[in-house]
Protein backbone atom coordinates (compact mmCIF):
# COMPACT_ATOMS: atom_id res chain seq x y z
CA UNK A 1 0.00 0.00 0.00
CA UNK A 2 1.13 3.55 -0.68
CA UNK A 3 1.23 5.93 2.24
CA UNK A 4 1.86 9.66 2.59
CA UNK A 5 3.68 10.77 5.75
CA UNK A 6 3.18 14.48 6.50
CA UNK A 7 5.54 15.29 9.38
CA UNK A 8 7.75 18.36 9.72
CA UNK A 9 10.41 16.81 11.96
CA UNK A 10 12.76 15.19 9.39
CA UNK A 11 14.12 12.59 11.78
CA UNK A 12 10.68 11.37 12.83
CA UNK A 13 9.51 11.39 9.20
CA UNK A 14 12.49 9.22 8.28
CA UNK A 15 11.80 6.81 11.16
CA UNK A 16 8.17 6.49 10.09
CA UNK A 17 9.16 5.97 6.45
CA UNK A 18 11.65 3.25 7.42
CA UNK A 19 9.18 1.40 9.62
CA UNK A 20 6.42 1.62 7.01
CA UNK A 21 8.76 0.38 4.26
CA UNK A 22 9.75 -2.55 6.44
CA UNK A 23 6.04 -3.35 6.65
CA UNK A 24 5.95 -3.51 2.83
CA UNK A 25 4.38 -0.12 2.21
CA UNK A 26 5.68 2.50 -0.18
CA UNK A 27 6.08 5.89 1.42
CA UNK A 28 6.22 9.52 0.31
CA UNK A 29 7.18 12.15 2.86
CA UNK A 30 6.00 15.76 3.00
CA UNK A 31 7.84 18.08 5.40
CA UNK A 32 5.31 20.91 5.31
CA UNK A 33 1.60 21.48 4.81
CA UNK A 34 1.83 22.88 1.28
CA UNK A 35 3.78 19.87 0.04
CA UNK A 36 1.37 17.50 1.80
CA UNK A 37 -1.58 19.29 0.19
CA UNK A 38 0.01 19.01 -3.26
CA UNK A 39 0.85 15.32 -2.89
CA UNK A 40 -2.47 14.29 -1.36
CA UNK A 41 -4.45 15.94 -4.14
CA UNK A 42 -2.29 14.83 -7.08
CA UNK A 43 -1.12 11.34 -6.08
CA UNK A 44 -3.00 8.17 -5.18
CA UNK A 45 -2.54 7.10 -1.56
CA UNK A 46 -4.12 4.33 0.48
CA UNK A 47 -3.60 6.18 3.75
CA UNK A 48 -2.12 9.41 5.11
CA UNK A 49 -0.23 9.90 8.38
CA UNK A 50 -0.77 13.54 9.29
CA UNK A 51 0.96 15.69 11.90
CA UNK A 52 -1.24 18.60 13.00
CA UNK A 53 1.55 21.08 13.72
CA UNK A 54 2.82 21.44 10.14
CA UNK A 55 4.43 24.65 8.87
CA UNK A 56 2.84 26.62 6.00
CA UNK A 57 -0.55 24.86 6.23
CA UNK A 58 -1.53 23.28 9.53
CA UNK A 59 -2.97 19.80 9.72
CA UNK A 60 -6.52 20.76 10.69
CA UNK A 61 -6.76 23.14 7.71
CA UNK A 62 -5.51 20.37 5.43
CA UNK A 63 -8.00 17.88 6.85
CA UNK A 64 -10.88 20.28 6.32
CA UNK A 65 -9.70 21.19 2.83
CA UNK A 66 -9.30 17.54 1.77
CA UNK A 67 -12.62 16.42 3.18
CA UNK A 68 -14.40 19.40 1.59
CA UNK A 69 -12.79 18.45 -1.72
CA UNK A 70 -14.15 14.91 -1.36
CA UNK A 71 -10.84 13.18 -0.59
CA UNK A 72 -11.79 9.90 1.11
CA UNK A 73 -8.30 8.51 1.82
CA UNK A 74 -8.15 7.21 5.42
CA UNK A 75 -6.18 9.66 7.58
CA UNK A 76 -4.35 8.85 10.80
CA UNK A 77 -3.56 11.99 12.79
CA UNK A 78 -0.26 11.65 14.64
CA UNK A 79 0.25 14.65 16.88
CA UNK A 80 1.65 16.07 20.08
CA UNK A 81 -1.76 17.58 20.81
CA UNK A 82 -3.21 14.85 22.95
CA UNK A 83 -6.08 16.45 24.89
CA UNK A 84 -9.61 15.11 24.46
CA UNK A 85 -10.82 18.47 23.23
CA UNK A 86 -8.23 18.32 20.43
CA UNK A 87 -9.07 14.70 19.63
CA UNK A 88 -12.75 15.57 19.20
CA UNK A 89 -11.75 18.49 16.98
CA UNK A 90 -9.49 16.26 14.87
CA UNK A 91 -12.07 13.52 14.40
CA UNK A 92 -14.89 16.01 13.71
CA UNK A 93 -12.72 17.73 11.10
CA UNK A 94 -12.36 14.43 9.24
CA UNK A 95 -9.61 12.30 10.75
CA UNK A 96 -10.27 8.54 10.81
CA UNK A 97 -7.99 7.84 13.72
CA UNK A 98 -5.96 9.85 16.23
CA UNK A 99 -2.72 8.91 17.94
CA UNK A 100 -0.73 11.22 20.20
CA UNK A 101 3.05 11.44 20.52
CA UNK A 102 5.13 9.76 21.80
CA UNK A 103 3.78 6.57 20.25
CA UNK A 104 4.78 2.95 19.72
CA UNK A 105 5.60 2.20 16.09
CA UNK A 106 3.65 -1.09 16.31
CA UNK A 107 0.60 0.96 17.29
CA UNK A 108 0.96 3.19 14.20
CA UNK A 109 1.34 0.16 11.94
CA UNK A 110 -1.62 -1.66 13.50
CA UNK A 111 -3.92 1.34 13.21
CA UNK A 112 -2.91 2.00 9.60
CA UNK A 113 -3.61 -1.63 8.72
CA UNK A 114 -7.05 -1.36 10.33
CA UNK A 115 -7.80 1.92 8.52
CA UNK A 116 -6.81 0.54 5.12
CA UNK A 117 -8.78 -2.66 5.75
CA UNK A 118 -11.92 -0.81 6.86
CA UNK A 119 -11.66 1.67 3.97
CA UNK A 120 -11.82 -1.26 1.55
CA UNK A 121 -14.82 -2.65 3.41
CA UNK A 122 -13.29 -5.70 5.09
CA UNK A 123 -14.20 -6.66 8.62
CA UNK A 124 -11.49 -9.23 9.33
CA UNK A 125 -7.77 -8.54 9.57
CA UNK A 126 -6.91 -11.67 7.57
CA UNK A 127 -8.12 -11.65 3.96
CA UNK A 128 -8.96 -14.87 2.23
CA UNK A 129 -9.81 -15.52 -1.41
CA UNK A 130 -10.26 -19.22 -2.04
CA UNK A 131 -7.00 -20.98 -1.26
CA UNK A 132 -4.99 -17.76 -0.91
CA UNK A 133 -4.85 -15.96 2.43
CA UNK A 134 -3.12 -12.64 3.12
CA UNK A 135 -2.40 -11.37 6.61
CA UNK A 136 -1.35 -7.69 6.53
CA UNK A 137 -0.35 -7.84 10.21
CA UNK A 138 2.47 -10.29 9.47
CA UNK A 139 2.87 -9.38 5.77
CA UNK A 140 2.36 -13.10 5.16
CA UNK A 141 0.73 -14.90 2.25
CA UNK A 142 -0.31 -18.54 2.28
CA UNK A 143 -1.59 -20.87 -0.44
CA UNK A 144 -3.57 -23.79 1.02
CA UNK A 145 -2.07 -22.78 4.40
CA UNK A 146 1.47 -23.16 3.06
CA UNK A 147 3.48 -19.91 3.29
CA UNK A 148 4.43 -18.39 -0.07
CA UNK A 149 7.51 -16.22 -0.32
CA UNK A 150 6.92 -12.93 -2.17
CA UNK A 151 9.11 -9.91 -2.90
CA UNK A 152 8.06 -6.46 -1.66
CA UNK A 153 6.60 -5.42 -5.02
CA UNK A 154 4.77 -8.72 -5.47
CA UNK A 155 3.31 -8.41 -1.98
CA UNK A 156 2.09 -4.86 -2.64
CA UNK A 157 0.45 -5.83 -5.94
CA UNK A 158 -1.30 -8.80 -4.33
CA UNK A 159 -2.27 -6.81 -1.22
CA UNK A 160 -3.80 -4.02 -3.30
CA UNK A 161 -5.75 -6.44 -5.50
CA UNK A 162 -7.01 -8.38 -2.48
CA UNK A 163 -8.07 -5.21 -0.65
CA UNK A 164 -10.08 -4.35 -3.76
CA UNK A 165 -11.19 -7.84 -4.68
CA UNK A 166 -14.28 -8.22 -6.84
CA UNK A 167 -13.40 -5.02 -8.70
CA UNK A 168 -11.28 -4.44 -11.79
CA UNK A 169 -8.05 -2.60 -11.00
CA UNK A 170 -6.34 -0.91 -13.93
CA UNK A 171 -2.62 -1.20 -14.58
CA UNK A 172 -2.24 2.56 -14.05
CA UNK A 173 -3.98 2.38 -10.66
CA UNK A 174 -1.78 -0.48 -9.57
CA UNK A 175 1.34 1.40 -10.64
CA UNK A 176 0.27 4.45 -8.66
CA UNK A 177 -0.24 2.46 -5.50
CA UNK A 178 2.90 0.33 -5.50
CA UNK A 179 5.56 2.92 -6.29
CA UNK A 180 6.66 5.99 -4.38
CA UNK A 181 6.38 9.32 -6.15
CA UNK A 182 10.11 9.58 -6.75
CA UNK A 183 10.29 6.17 -8.41
CA UNK A 184 10.65 5.92 -12.15
CA UNK A 185 7.44 4.17 -13.02
CA UNK A 186 7.15 1.63 -15.77
CA UNK A 187 3.81 -0.06 -16.18
CA UNK A 188 5.42 -3.01 -17.97
CA UNK A 189 6.86 -4.10 -14.65
CA UNK A 190 3.33 -4.59 -13.29
CA UNK A 191 2.84 -7.29 -15.93
CA UNK A 192 6.01 -8.93 -14.71
CA UNK A 193 4.78 -8.94 -11.09
CA UNK A 194 1.39 -10.33 -12.13
CA UNK A 195 3.08 -13.10 -14.08
CA UNK A 196 5.26 -14.01 -11.09
CA UNK A 197 2.25 -13.98 -8.76
CA UNK A 198 0.38 -16.29 -11.13
CA UNK A 199 3.32 -18.67 -11.11
CA UNK A 200 3.31 -18.72 -7.33
CA UNK A 201 -0.43 -18.71 -6.65
CA UNK A 202 -2.00 -20.46 -9.64
CA UNK A 203 -2.68 -19.16 -13.13
CA UNK A 204 -6.39 -18.43 -12.65
CA UNK A 205 -6.19 -16.59 -9.33
CA UNK A 206 -5.63 -13.16 -10.87
CA UNK A 207 -7.80 -12.63 -13.94
CA UNK A 208 -6.98 -10.29 -16.78
CA UNK A 209 -9.94 -8.19 -17.89
CA UNK A 210 -8.97 -7.33 -21.43
CA UNK A 211 -8.35 -3.64 -21.97
CA UNK A 212 -9.33 -2.75 -18.39
CA UNK A 213 -6.97 -4.35 -15.92
CA UNK A 214 -6.86 -7.15 -13.35
CA UNK A 215 -9.33 -8.65 -10.95
CA UNK A 216 -9.38 -11.13 -8.11
CA UNK A 217 -12.85 -12.62 -7.73
CA UNK A 218 -14.35 -12.26 -4.29
CA UNK A 219 -15.36 -15.93 -4.24
CA UNK A 220 -12.44 -17.40 -6.18
Amino acid at each position, binding site marked *: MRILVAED*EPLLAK*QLATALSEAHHVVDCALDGAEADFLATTEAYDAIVLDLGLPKLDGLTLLRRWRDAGVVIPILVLTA*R*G*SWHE*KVQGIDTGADDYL*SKPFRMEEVLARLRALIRRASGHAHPEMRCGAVALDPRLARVTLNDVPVSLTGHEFRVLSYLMHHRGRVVSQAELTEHIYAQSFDRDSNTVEVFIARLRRKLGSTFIRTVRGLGYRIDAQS
Partner: protein
Amino acid sequence: MNSNSSFRLRLLLGSVLWTLGLLALAHMIFRAIFIRPHFVFRSADPIIIGLALLFAISGLMAVRSGLIPFRRLRQRLLDVRDGRLQTVTGSYPNEVQPLVDDLNSLLEQRDRAVREAQAKAGDLAHGLKTPLAIIAQEAEPLEREGHTELAVSIRVQIERMRRQIEYQLAQARAAATGNTPGVRSSIKESAVGLSRTLHRLYADRAFSIEIEASGEHFVRVQREDLDEILGNLLDNACKWAKTRVVLSSQIANCELLMVVDDDGPGIAPSLRESVLQRGVRADETAPGSGLGLAIVRRLAELYRGSISLEQSSMGGLRATVRLPVAG
Protein backbone atom coordinates in the same frame (compact mmCIF):
# COMPACT_ATOMS: atom_id res chain seq x y z
CA MET B 1 -35.75 61.01 30.59
CA ASN B 2 -34.21 57.71 29.55
CA SER B 3 -32.59 55.45 32.10
CA ASN B 4 -29.05 55.97 30.80
CA SER B 5 -28.92 59.73 31.20
CA SER B 6 -26.82 61.35 33.86
CA PHE B 7 -27.09 59.83 37.29
CA ARG B 8 -26.23 63.23 38.79
CA LEU B 9 -29.18 64.94 37.05
CA ARG B 10 -31.58 62.37 38.41
CA LEU B 11 -30.30 62.74 41.94
CA LEU B 12 -30.52 66.55 41.66
CA LEU B 13 -34.05 66.46 40.31
CA GLY B 14 -35.09 63.94 42.97
CA SER B 15 -33.69 65.98 45.82
CA VAL B 16 -35.14 69.28 44.55
CA LEU B 17 -38.61 67.69 44.28
CA TRP B 18 -38.23 66.08 47.70
CA THR B 19 -37.12 69.36 49.25
CA LEU B 20 -39.96 71.35 47.67
CA GLY B 21 -42.49 68.82 48.93
CA LEU B 22 -41.00 68.87 52.41
CA LEU B 23 -40.92 72.68 52.50
CA ALA B 24 -44.61 72.90 51.61
CA LEU B 25 -45.50 70.28 54.22
CA ALA B 26 -43.35 72.05 56.84
CA HIS B 27 -45.09 75.28 56.03
CA MET B 28 -48.52 73.71 56.66
CA ILE B 29 -47.37 72.06 59.89
CA PHE B 30 -45.74 75.29 61.09
CA ARG B 31 -48.98 77.13 60.48
CA ALA B 32 -51.04 74.44 62.22
CA ILE B 33 -48.82 74.48 65.34
CA PHE B 34 -47.93 78.13 65.84
CA ILE B 35 -51.01 79.87 64.54
CA ARG B 36 -53.39 77.21 65.85
CA PRO B 37 -56.03 79.47 67.62
CA HIS B 38 -56.61 81.33 64.46
CA PHE B 39 -56.19 78.34 62.23
CA VAL B 40 -58.64 78.46 59.44
CA PHE B 41 -58.72 75.76 56.85
CA ARG B 42 -58.29 77.61 53.59
CA SER B 43 -59.65 76.25 50.39
CA ALA B 44 -56.20 76.14 48.81
CA ASP B 45 -54.73 73.97 51.63
CA PRO B 46 -55.74 70.51 50.33
CA ILE B 47 -54.19 71.42 47.00
CA ILE B 48 -50.97 72.53 48.71
CA ILE B 49 -50.84 69.33 50.81
CA GLY B 50 -51.58 67.22 47.75
CA LEU B 51 -48.91 68.96 45.73
CA ALA B 52 -46.42 68.68 48.60
CA LEU B 53 -46.99 64.92 48.88
CA LEU B 54 -46.79 64.55 45.10
CA PHE B 55 -43.46 66.44 45.00
CA ALA B 56 -42.00 64.44 47.87
CA ILE B 57 -43.07 61.10 46.39
CA SER B 58 -41.89 61.88 42.85
CA GLY B 59 -38.60 63.08 44.36
CA LEU B 60 -38.18 59.70 46.05
CA MET B 61 -39.11 57.90 42.83
CA ALA B 62 -36.57 59.92 40.84
CA VAL B 63 -33.77 58.94 43.24
CA ARG B 64 -34.91 55.34 43.24
CA SER B 65 -34.98 55.14 39.47
CA GLY B 66 -31.53 56.73 39.45
CA LEU B 67 -30.33 53.75 41.48
CA ILE B 68 -31.88 51.10 39.19
CA PRO B 69 -28.75 50.85 36.98
CA PHE B 70 -26.76 49.81 40.07
CA ARG B 71 -29.14 46.96 40.77
CA ARG B 72 -28.83 45.94 37.12
CA LEU B 73 -25.04 46.16 37.33
CA ARG B 74 -25.05 43.94 40.40
CA GLN B 75 -27.23 41.39 38.58
CA ARG B 76 -24.90 41.40 35.56
CA LEU B 77 -21.87 40.89 37.80
CA LEU B 78 -23.58 37.88 39.37
CA ASP B 79 -24.30 36.60 35.83
CA VAL B 80 -20.62 36.93 34.95
CA ARG B 81 -19.57 35.17 38.13
CA ASP B 82 -21.99 32.31 37.49
CA GLY B 83 -20.94 31.98 33.89
CA ARG B 84 -24.14 33.20 32.23
CA LEU B 85 -22.32 36.19 30.71
CA GLN B 86 -18.78 36.77 29.44
CA THR B 87 -18.76 40.55 29.96
CA VAL B 88 -20.94 43.11 31.73
CA THR B 89 -23.56 44.07 29.14
CA GLY B 90 -25.97 47.01 28.78
CA SER B 91 -25.37 50.75 28.95
CA TYR B 92 -25.21 52.67 32.20
CA PRO B 93 -25.40 56.29 33.43
CA ASN B 94 -22.49 58.46 32.31
CA GLU B 95 -20.89 58.35 35.75
CA VAL B 96 -21.02 54.54 35.96
CA GLN B 97 -20.20 53.61 32.37
CA PRO B 98 -16.41 54.17 32.75
CA LEU B 99 -16.38 51.80 35.71
CA VAL B 100 -18.23 49.15 33.66
CA ASP B 101 -15.83 49.65 30.74
CA ASP B 102 -12.85 49.19 33.06
CA LEU B 103 -14.40 46.02 34.48
CA ASN B 104 -14.93 44.66 30.98
CA SER B 105 -11.40 45.41 29.86
CA LEU B 106 -10.13 43.70 33.01
CA LEU B 107 -12.18 40.61 32.14
CA GLU B 108 -10.86 40.70 28.56
CA GLN B 109 -7.28 41.05 29.77
CA ARG B 110 -7.75 38.01 31.98
CA ASP B 111 -9.19 36.05 29.08
CA ARG B 112 -6.21 36.98 26.95
CA ALA B 113 -3.75 35.99 29.68
CA VAL B 114 -5.51 32.63 30.05
CA ARG B 115 -5.37 31.97 26.31
CA GLU B 116 -1.67 32.86 26.23
CA ALA B 117 -0.96 30.53 29.14
CA GLN B 118 -2.84 27.75 27.34
CA ALA B 119 -0.88 28.36 24.15
CA LYS B 120 2.41 28.31 26.06
CA ALA B 121 1.55 25.09 27.87
CA GLY B 122 0.60 23.56 24.51
CA ASP B 123 3.84 24.73 22.89
CA LEU B 124 5.86 23.26 25.73
CA ALA B 125 4.11 19.91 25.42
CA HIS B 126 4.50 19.87 21.64
CA GLY B 127 8.14 20.80 22.00
CA LEU B 128 8.78 17.86 24.32
CA LYS B 129 6.63 15.18 22.76
CA THR B 130 8.15 15.10 19.28
CA PRO B 131 11.73 14.61 20.57
CA LEU B 132 10.36 11.94 22.92
CA ALA B 133 8.75 10.18 19.97
CA ILE B 134 12.09 10.26 18.12
CA ILE B 135 14.02 8.86 21.10
CA ALA B 136 11.43 6.09 21.45
CA GLN B 137 11.92 5.12 17.80
CA GLU B 138 15.74 5.34 18.05
CA ALA B 139 15.59 2.90 20.95
CA GLU B 140 13.60 0.27 19.07
CA PRO B 141 16.51 -1.23 17.08
CA LEU B 142 18.38 -1.72 20.40
CA GLU B 143 16.05 -4.54 21.26
CA ARG B 144 16.70 -6.34 17.98
CA GLU B 145 20.43 -5.92 18.53
CA GLY B 146 20.17 -7.71 21.86
CA HIS B 147 20.27 -4.74 24.27
CA THR B 148 16.87 -5.71 25.65
CA GLU B 149 17.41 -4.27 29.11
CA LEU B 150 18.46 -0.90 27.79
CA ALA B 151 15.56 -0.79 25.32
CA VAL B 152 13.02 -1.60 28.05
CA SER B 153 14.53 0.94 30.41
CA ILE B 154 14.30 3.70 27.79
CA ARG B 155 10.72 2.73 27.00
CA VAL B 156 9.68 2.82 30.65
CA GLN B 157 11.30 6.22 31.21
CA ILE B 158 9.69 7.65 28.10
CA GLU B 159 6.31 6.39 29.30
CA ARG B 160 6.93 8.08 32.66
CA MET B 161 7.82 11.36 30.96
CA ARG B 162 4.73 11.11 28.76
CA ARG B 163 2.54 10.67 31.82
CA GLN B 164 4.18 13.61 33.60
CA ILE B 165 3.63 15.82 30.55
CA GLU B 166 -0.02 14.79 30.13
CA TYR B 167 -0.80 15.22 33.81
CA GLN B 168 0.98 18.54 34.29
CA LEU B 169 -0.37 19.89 31.01
CA ALA B 170 -3.98 19.10 31.93
CA GLN B 171 -3.45 20.61 35.37
CA ALA B 172 -1.67 23.75 34.12
CA ARG B 173 -4.46 24.38 31.65
CA ALA B 174 -7.16 23.98 34.27
CA ALA B 175 -5.32 25.95 36.94
CA ALA B 176 -5.01 28.88 34.54
CA THR B 177 -8.69 28.81 33.64
CA GLY B 178 -10.31 27.33 36.73
CA ASN B 179 -11.44 30.60 38.28
CA THR B 180 -12.15 32.55 35.12
CA PRO B 181 -15.58 34.17 35.33
CA GLY B 182 -18.12 33.59 32.60
CA VAL B 183 -17.45 29.88 32.17
CA ARG B 184 -20.35 27.57 31.34
CA SER B 185 -20.27 24.24 29.48
CA SER B 186 -22.96 21.78 28.47
CA ILE B 187 -22.50 18.20 29.63
CA LYS B 188 -24.54 16.82 26.77
CA GLU B 189 -22.73 18.77 24.03
CA SER B 190 -19.37 17.63 25.33
CA ALA B 191 -20.53 14.01 25.70
CA VAL B 192 -21.98 13.80 22.18
CA GLY B 193 -18.70 14.96 20.60
CA LEU B 194 -16.67 12.57 22.73
CA SER B 195 -18.97 9.67 21.93
CA ARG B 196 -18.46 10.28 18.19
CA THR B 197 -14.71 10.36 18.71
CA LEU B 198 -14.58 7.26 20.93
CA HIS B 199 -16.61 5.23 18.43
CA ARG B 200 -14.04 6.21 15.81
CA LEU B 201 -11.03 5.43 18.01
CA TYR B 202 -12.45 2.04 18.99
CA ALA B 203 -13.87 1.33 15.53
CA ASP B 204 -13.02 -2.37 15.75
CA ARG B 205 -14.97 -2.90 18.96
CA ALA B 206 -18.71 -3.20 19.23
CA PHE B 207 -20.10 -1.29 22.21
CA SER B 208 -22.62 1.45 22.76
CA ILE B 209 -22.29 4.74 24.63
CA GLU B 210 -25.70 5.78 25.94
CA ILE B 211 -25.95 9.45 26.84
CA GLU B 212 -28.76 10.05 29.32
CA ALA B 213 -27.46 13.45 30.42
CA SER B 214 -29.92 16.33 30.23
CA GLY B 215 -29.40 19.08 27.64
CA GLU B 216 -30.23 21.56 30.42
CA HIS B 217 -27.28 20.62 32.60
CA PHE B 218 -24.38 23.06 32.58
CA VAL B 219 -21.25 23.12 34.74
CA ARG B 220 -19.05 26.04 35.68
CA VAL B 221 -16.05 24.44 33.97
CA GLN B 222 -14.05 25.43 30.87
CA ARG B 223 -15.11 23.39 27.84
CA GLU B 224 -11.57 22.02 27.26
CA ASP B 225 -11.43 20.80 30.85
CA LEU B 226 -14.92 19.31 30.79
CA ASP B 227 -13.91 17.46 27.60
CA GLU B 228 -10.77 16.22 29.38
CA ILE B 229 -12.75 15.07 32.44
CA LEU B 230 -15.56 13.38 30.48
CA GLY B 231 -13.14 12.10 27.82
CA ASN B 232 -10.99 10.29 30.36
CA LEU B 233 -14.05 8.92 32.19
CA LEU B 234 -15.70 7.63 29.01
CA ASP B 235 -12.41 6.38 27.52
CA ASN B 236 -11.69 4.41 30.67
CA ALA B 237 -15.21 2.95 30.60
CA CYS B 238 -14.93 2.08 26.88
CA LYS B 239 -11.57 0.40 27.42
CA TRP B 240 -13.09 -2.04 29.89
CA ALA B 241 -16.75 -2.30 28.89
CA LYS B 242 -18.04 -5.48 27.31
CA THR B 243 -20.92 -3.89 25.41
CA ARG B 244 -22.32 -0.85 27.21
CA VAL B 245 -21.28 2.49 28.66
CA VAL B 246 -23.94 4.77 30.17
CA LEU B 247 -23.54 8.45 31.08
CA SER B 248 -26.20 10.14 33.19
CA SER B 249 -26.38 13.44 35.05
CA GLN B 250 -28.38 14.93 37.92
CA ILE B 251 -28.35 18.01 40.12
CA ALA B 252 -28.12 17.76 43.90
CA ASN B 253 -27.25 20.55 46.37
CA CYS B 254 -25.97 22.97 43.71
CA GLU B 255 -23.62 20.27 42.42
CA LEU B 256 -23.86 18.49 39.14
CA LEU B 257 -23.31 14.75 39.31
CA MET B 258 -21.99 13.06 36.19
CA VAL B 259 -22.20 9.30 36.47
CA VAL B 260 -20.44 6.91 34.08
CA ASP B 261 -21.34 3.21 34.32
CA ASP B 262 -19.87 0.31 32.37
CA ASP B 263 -20.44 -3.44 32.21
CA GLY B 264 -16.75 -4.38 32.35
CA PRO B 265 -14.89 -6.16 35.14
CA GLY B 266 -14.87 -3.14 37.50
CA ILE B 267 -12.10 -2.32 39.98
CA ALA B 268 -11.64 -4.14 43.28
CA PRO B 269 -12.52 -1.89 46.26
CA SER B 270 -8.96 -2.11 47.60
CA LEU B 271 -7.53 -0.76 44.32
CA ARG B 272 -10.02 2.09 43.81
CA GLU B 273 -8.06 4.63 45.82
CA SER B 274 -4.76 3.78 44.14
CA VAL B 275 -6.03 4.24 40.56
CA LEU B 276 -6.96 7.79 41.51
CA GLN B 277 -3.39 8.46 42.63
CA ARG B 278 -1.12 10.03 40.13
CA GLY B 279 0.70 7.70 37.77
CA VAL B 280 -0.54 4.48 39.34
CA ARG B 281 -2.12 1.80 37.22
CA ALA B 282 -4.56 -0.80 38.43
CA ASP B 283 -3.67 -3.04 35.51
CA GLU B 284 -0.29 -2.79 33.84
CA THR B 285 -1.47 -4.61 30.72
CA ALA B 286 -3.63 -1.84 29.30
CA PRO B 287 -1.27 0.98 28.31
CA GLY B 288 -2.14 4.39 29.67
CA SER B 289 -4.98 3.24 31.87
CA GLY B 290 -5.20 4.60 35.36
CA LEU B 291 -3.58 7.91 34.56
CA GLY B 292 -6.88 9.02 33.03
CA LEU B 293 -8.74 8.76 36.33
CA ALA B 294 -5.90 10.50 38.17
CA ILE B 295 -6.21 13.42 35.73
CA VAL B 296 -9.99 13.48 36.26
CA ARG B 297 -9.50 13.67 40.01
CA ARG B 298 -6.98 16.53 39.77
CA LEU B 299 -9.18 18.53 37.36
CA ALA B 300 -12.30 17.99 39.46
CA GLU B 301 -10.43 19.19 42.55
CA LEU B 302 -9.23 22.33 40.76
CA TYR B 303 -12.89 23.16 40.12
CA ARG B 304 -13.75 22.36 43.76
CA GLY B 305 -15.38 19.11 42.73
CA SER B 306 -14.60 15.47 43.43
CA ILE B 307 -14.61 11.94 42.00
CA SER B 308 -15.70 8.70 43.62
CA LEU B 309 -15.57 5.11 42.39
CA GLU B 310 -17.95 2.30 43.26
CA GLN B 311 -19.54 -0.87 41.94
CA SER B 312 -21.99 -0.24 39.08
CA SER B 313 -25.42 -1.85 38.94
CA MET B 314 -24.37 -2.83 35.41
CA GLY B 315 -21.60 -4.99 36.85
CA GLY B 316 -18.53 -2.86 36.12
CA LEU B 317 -17.23 0.41 37.48
CA ARG B 318 -19.34 3.43 38.38
CA ALA B 319 -17.42 6.71 38.39
CA THR B 320 -19.23 9.73 39.82
CA VAL B 321 -17.81 13.22 39.33
CA ARG B 322 -19.26 16.22 41.16
CA LEU B 323 -18.79 19.69 39.66
CA PRO B 324 -20.25 23.15 40.40
CA VAL B 325 -23.49 23.86 38.52
CA ALA B 326 -23.73 26.85 36.20
CA GLY B 327 -27.27 28.24 36.05
